[in-house]
């Protein structure tokens, strides 16, 4: 299945991209995608737990099972206002 991953703020700076399509095995949970990013980018190594997670523009739990076509975003600490 395919999931679109969106990168914002510090995560866009670290990865150098604003979005990417990922092929994932069925049953992949949102936090598992975070673990694979940590392996890929050394700047994330110390961030064991994912920041907040959004699936399809709504906050979701880390163990949310992703589905084909989902839009996934990791939400670093927010600082609006």
């Amino acid at each position: 299945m395919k999931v679109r991953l969106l990168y914002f703020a510090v995560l866009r700076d670290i990865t150098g991209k604003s979005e990417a399509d990922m092929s994932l095995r069925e049953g992949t949970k949102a936090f598992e995608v975070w673990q694979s990013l940590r392996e890929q980018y050394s700047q994330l190594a110390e961030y064991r737990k994912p920041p907040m997670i959004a699936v399809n523009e709504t906050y979701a739990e880390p163990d949310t099972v992703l589905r084909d076509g989902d839009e996934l975003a990791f939400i670093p600490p927010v600082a609006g206002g």
Partner: protein
Amino acid sequence: MSYLTDGPIDTADLVRRTVRASDGASIVFEGVVRNHHDGKAVQSIFYDAYRPMAEKEIAKIVSEVQSQLPDVAIGVVHRLGQLAVGDASIVIVTSSPHRAEAYDASRLLIDRIKETVPIWKKERGPGGEEWVGWQGARY
């Protein structure tokens, strides 16, 4: 209506669009870029957002506060992009027949917006740039 804008916020226009003839109080809250943070000098701030989700989250907060304080009319605009010291990053207008509700709503709105809306800021100062909150977010 969009809660986000890329240009300067027109506060007077937001007041005009929010306040009704039946209102006797109108409160304007402006969040402004300051020249320091955590003891460091700040020259400018870049605001980034997950736009469609930020719109939804602000709408949710506005409707929650609206149902808590039904007599209040609410206007909210958050600015994104590069802002200089003194620029308003957010303007919240609340108005109501009497002042107490408008004051309460104003405070509730800014506190909740700061908590959950996916908007981020990168501060730039003489020492470089930093995404606010990221360094302290290691778990």
